[in-house]
C-alpha cells in the first residue's frame, strides 16, 4: 500500500514538474465575438501602439469612428511588440484571430493566410485602396491578392547625433562602407561610443547583416536565396565579413550584448541620452529615443545605409517595412468600414501630424513637418528597390535563424561562413 501511494505521488510530482513544459505548448486563446442582440457590432482591434503619442491618438480615432457609426463598438486590445507576436502565435494555432489585427506582412501573414484565417480584401477594398502608396502595400500582397491595408511604411537607416559627429570632426555623413568605418574610428578616437545596439533582442543586429547583404549580394539575391534555400553565395559571406570588420572596431556601447531596445537602459535610450553617436533603426527611432531617453531634438539626423564598394546594391535601395491591418476570415462589414476610415486622407493626415508616421495616402504628404521624417520619406519615394524586414519576409524559423546567427557573429562565436551555413541549414529544414 505504501508503495502505491508512493508511486502515485511520484507521478503527480513529476507531472506537476513537467506541467509547465507541456501545457505551455498546448496554447491558449482569447475570443473575439462580435455582434449582439441589440444590433450593435463589437469589433475587436488588436494593435501594438503601446507608446505615446500613438496610443492616445489611436484611441481618439476609434472614438471618432464610433461617433460616425453609432451601431459599432471598437474594442481596442494593445500589446507590446513581442508579447503581441507570442499571443498571435497562440491564437493562430487555436484557429481564430481578432477581427482587426496588426500585421507586418511577409512570412507570418502568409502562414495565417495558408491556414485559411485571413480575409481576402482584394475586391472589398479595391475602390479606395488603389490610391494608396504602392510601396506601402507591397508587404501584404501575396499571390496578387491583398490581405491587409497599410497605415504606415518606413525604412531603416542610421540615426545620428549631429553634435557628436561635429565633435569628432565628421562634416558629412558617410556614403560608403569604408567611409562609415572611418567615421566609427574617428568617433572612437574622441572617446565617443559610435553605435548603440540592443544585442539581447537580436533583431537590431540583423539590420546590419541584411543591409550589407543587400549592398553586396543585391536584393534579387536575397529573394533567390530564400526561394532556393541557399544562402551560401559569396555575397552573403562577404556581408558577414564586412559586419565582422565593424564588430572588430568595438563600436558598441558597454554591455550591448545584454541591452534591450526600448528600455531606460536600452539602445534607443543610449542614443537619446547622447551616450552613443548612432543607431541603425527604423523610422520610429526618434519617438522611442524621446520616450525612453531625453531625445536629441534638433541634433538628430538621418542618413541612408552606405553603399559597399564593389557591391551589387545601390545606396537608394531601402530595407524596411510598415504596419498594416488585416481582418480575420469572416470579420463583420464594420471591420472593412473601419479600414477604409483608417486609410482616409483625414485619418492619415492626423496620423502623420500627431504620431510621425509616413503617409500612405498621397494627399496626407503635406502634413509632414519633421525634417527627419521628411528625409526618410524622400528616401522612400526615390527608392529604386525595396526589401521587407527579413524576419518578416522569410518563414519564421529562417527569420529567427538569421537573427540568431548574426547575433552569434556579433558576439564573436560564428564566422561569416558559419552564419551563411546555419541560415541555409534552417531554410532547408523548412519544407
Amino acid at each position: 500500500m505504501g508503495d502505491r501511494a508512493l508511486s502515485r505521488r511520484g507521478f503527480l510530482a513529476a507531472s506537476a514538474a513537467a506541467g509547465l513544459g507541456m501545457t505551455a505548448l498546448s496554447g491558449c486563446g482569447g475570443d473575439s465575438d462580435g455582434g449582439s442582440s441589440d444590433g450593435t457590432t463589437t469589433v475587436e482591434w488588436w494593435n501594438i501602439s503601446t507608446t505615446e503619442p500613438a496610443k492616445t491618438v489611436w484611441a481618439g480615432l476609434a472614438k471618432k469612428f464610433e461617433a460616425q457609426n453609432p451601431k459599432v463598438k471598437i474594442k481596442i486590445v494593445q500589446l507590446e511588440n513581442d508579447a503581441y507576436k507570442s499571443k498571435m502565435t497562440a491564437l493562430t494555432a487555436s484557429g481564430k484571430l481578432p477581427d482587426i489585427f496588426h500585421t507586418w506582412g511577409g512570412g507570418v501573414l502568409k502562414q495565417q493566410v495558408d491556414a485559411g484565417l485571413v480575409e481576402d480584401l482584394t475586391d472589398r477594398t479595391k475602390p479606395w485602396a488603389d490610391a494608396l502608396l504602392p510601396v506601402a502595400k507591397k508587404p501584404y500582397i501575396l499571390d496578387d491578392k491583398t490581405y491587409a491595408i497599410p497605415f504606415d511604411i518606413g525604412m531603416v537607416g542610421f540615426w545620428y547625433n549631429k553634435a557628436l559627429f561635429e565633435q569628432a570632426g565628421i562634416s558629412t555623413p558617410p556614403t560608403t562602407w569604408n567611409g562609415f568605418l572611418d567615421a566609427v574610428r574617428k568617433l572612437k578616437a574622441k572617446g565617443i561610443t559610435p553605435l548603440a545596439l540592443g544585442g539581447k533582442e537580436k533583431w537590431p543586429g540583423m539590420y546590419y547583416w541584411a543591409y550589407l547583404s543587400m549592398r553586396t549580394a543585391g536584393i534579387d539575391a536575397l529573394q533567390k536565396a530564400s526561394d532556393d534555400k541557399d544562402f551560401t553565395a559569396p555575397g552573403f559571406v562577404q556581408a558577414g565579413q564586412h559586419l565582422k570588420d565593424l564588430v572588430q572596431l568595438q563600436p558598441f556601447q558597454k554591455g550591448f550584448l545584454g541591452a534591450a531596445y526600448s528600455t531606460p537602459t536600452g539602445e534607443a535610450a543610449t542614443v537619446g541620452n547622447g551616450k552613443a553617436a548612432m543607431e541603425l533603426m527604423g523610422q520610429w527611432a526618434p519617438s522611442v529615443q524621446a520616450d525612453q531617453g531625453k531625445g536629441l531634438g534638433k541634433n538628430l539626423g538621418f542618413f541612408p545605409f552606405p553603399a559597399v564598394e564593389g557591391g551589387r546594391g545601390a545606396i537608394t535601395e531601402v530595407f524596411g517595412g510598415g504596419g498594416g491591418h488585416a481582418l480575420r476570415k469572416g470579420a463583420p462589414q464594420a471591420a472593412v468600414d473601419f479600414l477604409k476610415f483608417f486609410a482616409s486622407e483625414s485619418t492619415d493626415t492626423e496620423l502623420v501630424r500627431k504620431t510621425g508616421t509616413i503617409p500612405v495616402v498621397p494627399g496626407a504628404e503635406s502634413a509632414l513637418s519633421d525634417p527627419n521624417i521628411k528625409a526618410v520619406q524622400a528616401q522612400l519615394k526615390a527608392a529604386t528597390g525595396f526589401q521587407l524586414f527579413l524576419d518578416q519576409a522569410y518563414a519564421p524559423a529562417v527569420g529567427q535563424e538569421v537573427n540568431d546567427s548574426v547575433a552569434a557573429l556579433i558576439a564573436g562565436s560564428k564566422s561569416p561562413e558559419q552564419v551563411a551555413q546555419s541560415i541555409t541549414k534552417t531554410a532547408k529544414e523548412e519544407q
Partner: protein
Amino acid sequence: MTSTSSTFLPDKRSGPSVELPPPDADFARGRARRRLLNWLTAVGFQVPALVLFIGLVLLPMLFALYAAFFRWGGFGMPSDYAGTDNFTRLFQDPVFLGDLWRCLVLVGLSLALQLPFALALAVALNQRLRGRAVYRMLFFAPYVLSEAITGVLFSMVFAPGDGLADHVLGAVGLDGLGGEWFADPSYVMATLFLVMTWKYFGFHMMLYLAGLQSIPAELTEAALIDGAGPWQRFRNVTLPLLAPTLRISVFLSVIGAIQLFDLVWVITQGGPDHHSETMAVTMFQYGFKRYQVGYASAISVVMFGICLVFALAYQRFVLRRDLEGATTNMRGDGK
C-alpha cells in the same frame, strides 16, 4: 510511545472482521451492492477534477508526445511524420546540449552553495536572537516577489555601468569587480545564479526552520549534558533529524533548476549568444518564435522525461525512508 501502547490494545484492524456473522449469499450480494454504490459515489465526486485533469493536463501532454514525432508548424493537425528526427536533431544541437550542461551546473551550484547557505541562516535564526522575526521576514520576502518582477529588478541592478551593482562596487573602491554582468558570456551564469539564490534561499530557509522547530529540545539538551560541542550537536543531532526536510528541499531545488524559465526569459532571453539558455527557453524559442512546434514538443518531452526519471528515482531511493515509517523515525539507527 505508539508502539508501546499498541501492545496493550487488541489489534484494531482485525477486530471488526472477527465480530462479523458468517457470510451467507444474501449478505454477500448486499455487500457487493454497497461496495458498488460507494465506488459510484467516489467516482461521482471525482468526475469534475478528473475531467479537468484529463482535459488540461493529460491530453495536452499526450498530444505533445504525439506532435514530437512530426514536423509541425502549429497550424491544423500534424501530418508530416518525421519519426525520431526531432530527437536525433535535438541531441546534435549544441544549444540543447549546452542547455543540459547548464542545467547540471545550476543543480550543482544550488546543492553546493544555495542550500548550505539557507541551512546556515536557518540554524542561525533558530537561536534566541533579538529581532529574529524581522530577519526571517526579510529573508523570505524575495520569494514572495514574482519572477518577472525579480527579473526586471535585477536587469536594472546589473545594468553595465549605470546599475546599482556597479555604483555600490564603485563606492567601496572595487570598481574593478564591476563588469558587464548579464552581458558577458563568461559571467552571465554566475550572475544569474546570484539572482536565483537571492530569490530562493528564503524559501529553503523557511523549510529548514520548520524542520528545526520540530526537533525536540530535549535531544539537544541531552547531547549538551553528554558533553557534545556545538559542531557535534549540529552534526549528530540536528542534521540527522533534519534529513527528511533536506531531502525534500533538494528535490524541489533540482526540479526548479530543470524547469527554470521566467527569470532567464525576462533578464537575458537566454543570451548573450545562448550562454544562459535553459531547456525551457529553447523550447519557447522554437515553439513560439520559430513555429517549429514539433521540434519544441520534442524538447518538452525530453524535459518531461528528465523530470519523471529524476522524480521517480528520487522517490524510490532517497525519499523512501521518509515516507515509509512516517513520523516514527527514532529507531536509533539513524537510517
